[in-house]
């Protein structure tokens, strides 16, 4: 919206209007009271001239002239009426014109005086309006600055000065860039000024002491009556608090989202764990039915092998294959059985390093066979962790075996253990300062690095799925990691696979330990 300066004297002064209308009434009344006295052509002409002049002046708002015409008409009518009553005709001769000129002179004089008077009244009114507006601007808490088109400050209200650490006196006459971090602002082109209508933006303003604060600015151009830009009004609101609240809200939202995500992840894990457990229960149910027949086949194969004549090589191969087939079927059933969560699953404080050493000794043969060297970086004085040694050993053996399988041409297996104190964030959402609280707990971390093939990124999400394997049939069941995942989960620990930049995989298992133990 563009502001046009309006001129208050333009409104109609009611008294002048009333007076003019009243004076019109006089000749009418006189004409009615004394018919015939207004018949003369000269008088009619004067009236005819005065009436349009009156109307024109009234229409244009020339109140003095309106009044003059009104009074002129009234006086003319009055004299005519008086003359009519006295029965004299005065419209002839020089006297008549002299009288008319005097009348008009008096009327214009009155008009001029009235005009002067109304200008003076107008000025007073304008002054009062100005005072009220200035007071309003001074009282309001919103900063207001008015500049000329060169962006020189003509007016700033006390709120504006206060917000920026100045006094009003210091601001007037300065370039408005005094508030901007970039300094002096260039005058705007006329076209830019015209386009600048209700220009709202957020910005950063500078105080006198150099400190900055966020503001909401709204600018508008002031147009003269003829439509030319003559200045810019800008309101400036300090929005530090709003910004702070907004930040807090954003932080709260972020935290909410995160905990929602965590919750969903937990739910997924619970569902996953539940699924695995039912697989385990199912396996336990059929294990008996599968393992007894396998036993019979295996024993039968051995008996047949013993009865084999020399030279029946093909049959010997067949019987060996059958032995392998039995072993495979057994591996699957055993893998599934591992999902059955033992309800007396017992966790006792154990030294993780000891379990690592035991597990390594069990895969040593396999490692030597594949020319895999071992690097141990086990931290001494590792805090004890509540765990089931047998189950964790099962996990570690699977991790080591996987690593060895990923390095068929040899490589290096690194096993690393260390601990670090657990830091917890203070969970007071109101405190802006988040403190790090040291708890009595520590994380005990086990890392297994290999220099093998690594895992394609699109497969990473699948490695924990039951039966996911990339190994040739017979070499892997694909149950190793899903069982490991379940075991780690039951320990309240976490397991993560990452491809290493230098090739190979790092597996990280994080256990939580109470420092007291």
């Amino acid at each position, binding site marked *: 919206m563009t502001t046009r300066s309006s001129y208050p004297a333009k409104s109609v002064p009611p008294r002048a209007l009333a007076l003019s209308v009243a004076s019109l009434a006089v000749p009418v009344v006189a004409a009615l009271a004394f018919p015939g006295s207004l018949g003369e052509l000269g008088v009619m002409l004067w009236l005819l001239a005065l009436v349009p002049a009156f109307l024109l002046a009234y229409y244009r708002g020339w109140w003095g002239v309106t009044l003059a015409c009104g009074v002129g008409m009234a006086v003319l009518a009055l004299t005519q009426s008086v003359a009519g009553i006295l029965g004299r005709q005065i419209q002839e001769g020089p006297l008549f014109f002299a009288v008319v000129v005097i009348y008009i002179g008096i009327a214009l004089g009155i008009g001029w005086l009235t005009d002067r008077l109304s200008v003076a009244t107008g000025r007073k009114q304008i002054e009062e309006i100005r005072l009220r507006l200035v007071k309003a601007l001074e009282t309001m808490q919103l900063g207001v600055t008015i500049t000329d088109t060169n962006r020189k400050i003509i007016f700033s209200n006390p709120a504006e000065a206060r917000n920026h650490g100045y006094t009003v006196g210091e601001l007037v006459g300065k370039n408005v860039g005094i508030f901007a971090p970039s300094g002096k602002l260039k005058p705007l082109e006329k076209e830019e000024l015209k386009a600048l209508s209700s220009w709202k933006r957020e910005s950063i303003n500078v105080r006198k002491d150099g400190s900055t604060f966020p503001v909401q600015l709204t600018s508008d151009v002031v147009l003269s009556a003829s439509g030319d830009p003559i200045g810019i009004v800008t309101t400036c609101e300090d929005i530090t608090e709003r910004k702070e609240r907004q930040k807090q809200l954003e932080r709260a939202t972020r935290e909410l989202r995160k905990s929602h995500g965590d919750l969903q992840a937990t739910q997924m894990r619970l569902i996953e764990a539940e699924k695995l457990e039912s697989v385990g229960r199912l396996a336990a149910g059929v*294990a*008996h039915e599968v*393992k*007894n027949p*396998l*036993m*019979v086949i295996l024993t039968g194969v051995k008996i047949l092998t013993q009865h084999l004549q020399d030279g029946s090589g093909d049959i010997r191969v067949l019987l060996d294959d059958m032995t392998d087939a039995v072993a495979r079927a057994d591996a699957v*059933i055993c893998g599934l059985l591992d999902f059955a969560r033992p309800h007396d699953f017992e966790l006792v404080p154990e030294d993780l390093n000891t379990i690592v050493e035991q597990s390594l000794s069990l895969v040593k043969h396999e490692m030597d066979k594949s020319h895999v060297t071992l690097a141990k970086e086990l931290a001494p004085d590792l805090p004890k962790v509540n765990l089931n040694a*047998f189950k964790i050993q099962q996990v570690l053996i699977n991790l080591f075996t996987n690593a060895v399988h990923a390095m068929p041409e040899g490589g290096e297996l690194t096993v690393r253990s260390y601990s670090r104190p657990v830091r917890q964030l203070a969970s007071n959402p109101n405190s802006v300062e988040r403190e790090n609280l040291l708890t009595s707990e520590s994380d005990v971390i086990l890392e297994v690095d290999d220099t093998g093939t690594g895992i394609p990124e699109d497969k990473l999400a699948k490695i924990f799925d039951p039966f996911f394997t990339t190994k040739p049939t017979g070499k892997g069941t694909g149950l190793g990691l899903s069982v490991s995942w379940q075991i780690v989960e039951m320990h309240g620990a976490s397991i993560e696979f990452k491809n290493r930049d230098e090739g190979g995989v790092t597996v990280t298992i994080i256990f939580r330990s109470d420092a007291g133990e």
Partner: protein
Amino acid sequence: MEKRRILVVDDEAIITRTLKLYLEGTGSYEVRTENEGSHALQAAREFNPDLIMLDLVMPDTDGATLASEFRGDSKLQNIPIIFLTALVSKQEVGAQGKEIGGHPFLAKPVDPEKVVECIEEQLQ
């Protein structure tokens, strides 16, 4: 050398039959089989075995209970026992020291050569 006497108790006849065939095939053992857990004590008293192989889970009883019954019998209490089970995975057997109540423990399907190894160990 005299043949050692082995009693094999398992509810599955196919198991006892094949094991008997294998063990007797080695020429070193005389095997008696029993498919009813509840008859095992009776069979043991009659047969007077040097070693007993017990299935851990049977429909009418379980191996651990039978073992304690043997232990309570003055004639049978010193006879070595080997458990067989279809219910655990090999890895579990490995980690629990291959023993239940002081007796060794084999998970089915087990290579019969391993069974012989285990028997020989126990008979020493």
